[in-house]
């Protein structure tokens, strides 16, 4: 089964996106911590798509979310037709242990995404960006 949400790609979408992800996480029986990690991951990538993929490129468009669940996993798919961008190509911040004065903050959102969800993938499909977030359902059993 899949639930979907489509809305204009502006920062005002972040609230509805988080609500959509929360509802999907709740329906899949994810615990509070897993729900937070998933919500954060989708929020970070959606924020990047909206600000860098659309707004800074002078583009307008939509975000489309799908939530799929089966017995083992909950999968959130975020699609857009903004500037092509693969978040997994961003190097992980290697400065987390270095002194504050030398720290850069680039890539922190992607870092939190990759380390927050159980699986994160990017695909380029039919000239669209597709970001895929997967969480394991620990023993939840409503199929």
């Amino acid at each position, binding site marked *: 089964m899949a639930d979907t949400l489509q809305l204009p790609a502006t920062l005002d979408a*972040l609230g509805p996106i988080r609500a959509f992800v929360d509802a999907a996480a709740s329906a899949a029986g994810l615990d509070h911590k897993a729900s937070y990690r998933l919500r954060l991951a989708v929020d970070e990538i959606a*924020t990047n798509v909206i600000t860098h993929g659309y707004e800074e490129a002078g583009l307008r468009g939509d975000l489309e979310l799908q939530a799929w669940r089966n017995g083992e996993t909950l999968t959130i798919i975020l699609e857009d037709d903004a500037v092509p961008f693969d978040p997994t190509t961003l190097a992980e911040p290697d400065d987390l242990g270095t002194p504050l004065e030398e720290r850069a903050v680039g890539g922190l959102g992607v870092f939190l995404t990759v380390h927050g969800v159980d699986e994160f993938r990017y695909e380029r499909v039919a000239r669209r960006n597709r970001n895929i977030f997967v969480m394991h359902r620990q023993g939840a059993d409503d199929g």
Partner: protein
Amino acid sequence: MRSFELTERELGPVTVMVVAGSVDAITAPRLGEALASALAAGRSRLVVDLVGVDYVSSAALRALLAGVKGSRSAGGDLRLAGVTPAVAKVFALAGFDAIVQRFDDAEAAAASFG
């Protein structure tokens, strides 16, 4: 999900910002502006009380990090209070624990400035 709120009070030389709600790409700039305003007014001993915050994204971390850098370069510091477990996990993942001091509440954080 609570809406974003920010209130400010002064405990002697320390400025305490009490934040509630979600601190994300939409609301983090308001925190950043409040921190910058305090620094511009010469107040570099800052406490950010996050007890009412139920959600932070990397935008919040960037705003706080800018406040940490600005306050330290002015001879002060930015210290956190009231961090909830969910928010603490994000800070830990991002490596913030090594950078920012945390206290149970705003009074303890303010007192730590001596």
